[in-house]
């Protein structure tokens, strides 16, 4: 087992009076894909967003417990949230390119983090688009608006945009739920290639997808993490009755 990139210790999250996440303690392996599964409203997306502090944006959210990234608490007083988010990138459910050119979409992040040289930006743009397996499709239209791309291309563009700031961790919140099967396949292949370099955590409501792309799986239910382990083991021999019922389709 490789070392944990991220781990949480008794993470609790409240939204107003609602207790959304309950005592989540989990370790996420570096350079592996971890899938978070569970029915809607189980807290898996909220958990994902607490790993790059996107929940900070919502009024009325209170967090207790700790989240460690490379052993350091990301909710600590010294933490620069923009630095953290550069290290922990995120891909959203809906592909949301900025209303600018394909090139500018990718160059946005690096520019924000101080990259000025044109050559360097060109390099990053090409490299990121290649990594996200969308370069061949867009290399001749880098100056065209990103909003003109197809849904699947947009999502790979958004992945490229997230990769452009050279993150260490990539959080993916149901990245294929808005895509057609062909595009979904492309994104899944992409995830398989990216895990050599990045620690990936993917939220999915699709159990087949979890089996296809992930090394580890954690099952969430009603704000609790019921069970986690290697994907092979969890789907073959779930230890908890609830996990078994969920993966065999008794509820969902």
């Amino acid at each position, binding site marked *: 087992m490789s070392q944990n990139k991220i781990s949480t210790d008794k993470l609790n999250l409240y939204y107003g009076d609602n207790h959304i996440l309950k005592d989540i303690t989990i370790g996420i392996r570096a350079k592996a894909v971890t899938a978070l599964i569970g029915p809607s409203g189980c807290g898996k997306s909220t958990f994902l967003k607490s790993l790059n502090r996107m929940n900070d944006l919502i009024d009325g959210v209170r967090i207790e417990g700790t989240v460690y990234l490379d052993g350091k608490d990301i909710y600590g007083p010294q933490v620069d949230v*923009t630095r953290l988010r550069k290290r922990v*990138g995120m891909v959203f459910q809906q592909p949301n390119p900025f209303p600018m050119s394909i090139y500018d979409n990718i160059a946005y992040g690096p520019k924000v983090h101080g990259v000025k040289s044109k050559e360097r930006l060109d390099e990053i743009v090409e490299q990121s688009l290649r990594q996200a397996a969308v370069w061949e499709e867009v290399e001749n239209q880098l100056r065209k608006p990103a909003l003109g791309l197809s849904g699947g291309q947009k999502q790979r563009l958004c992945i490229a945009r997230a990769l452009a700031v050279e993150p260490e961790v990539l959080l993916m919140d149901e990245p294929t739920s808005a895509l057609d099967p062909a595009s979904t396949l492309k994104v899944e292949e992409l995830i398989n290639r990216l895990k050599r370099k990045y620690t990936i955590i993917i939220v999915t409501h699709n159990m087949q997808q979890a089996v296809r792309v992930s090394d580890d799986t954690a099952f969430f239910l009603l704000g609790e993490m019921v069970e986690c382990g290697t994907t092979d083991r969890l789907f073959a021999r779930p230890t908890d009755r609830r996990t078994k019922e969920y993966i065999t389709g008794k509820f969902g």
Partner: protein
Amino acid sequence: MVRHTIEKAAEIIFSLCAFMAVAAVFSITLYMIANGLPAIFQAGWKEILFSSVWQPTAQEPSFGILYVILTSIVGTFLAVLLGVPVGLLTAVFLAETAPDSLAAVIRPAVELLAGIPSVIYGVLGMLILNPFLYRLEQKLFAGSQTHQFTGGANLLSAVIVLAVMILPTVISISETALRAVPPELKACSLALGASPVTTVFRVTIPAARSGILAAVVLGVGRAVGEAMAISLVSGNSVNLPLPFQSVRFLTTAIVSEMGYAGGLHRQVLFTIGLILFVFIMMINGILSSILKGERLE
């Protein structure tokens, strides 16, 4: 049967009401052209549009309104230059950063600003702005032999009053545009490690640009058409539009002279009205093409 008759009658009444608005626009257009054009033929369009001498009541009258047109253009431009940044940043504050409690105070205040009659702006400008600018003028032009002192009633006063008057338009329309930007788009920017301020300027405002542009155009329309407030603070004499000169706008030219003008002089004032009308039509054209572009996106 009775119900059917009521339905029919209601339909006819609705159509008539709608027709009245169209008829008004149509008849105004017709009337402006019919009354504005004769002077152009009589005095010559070059004489009117490109001469700067405005002596409508002299022995040898001259009807050059070049300075008046320039004043309207320059004055509007400067007012927009001053008012739009302030209005846009207010809108950003209201849409993005203001806590709800504070926004709940500022938003009605802005709406109130829009409801204040323009003559009140003019009176306040006279009471507050003009004396202040007069003191500034006395300092700046102390000892000048050539400067004609305006007592603070000058282009600068008018520009400031106009800038304040366009604020509500710019603020409320920009705010609506900024609020329409999908929160996910901002989240994407923040998730890349951009700060909230960077996100506003590089993502939110660019994403709302067509709405903001519409706000600017409507602000221009408001400024071009304003008469009452600026007639009180601008000094009302025909001059090249420089900050510390008394000036006359297209609107104020009509307001201040229509009461006594006769003959060709009166007709030229209608020509001024026609020019104003053309300006407003152009602004509306620009606006509708912006909005159409937005819908296509």
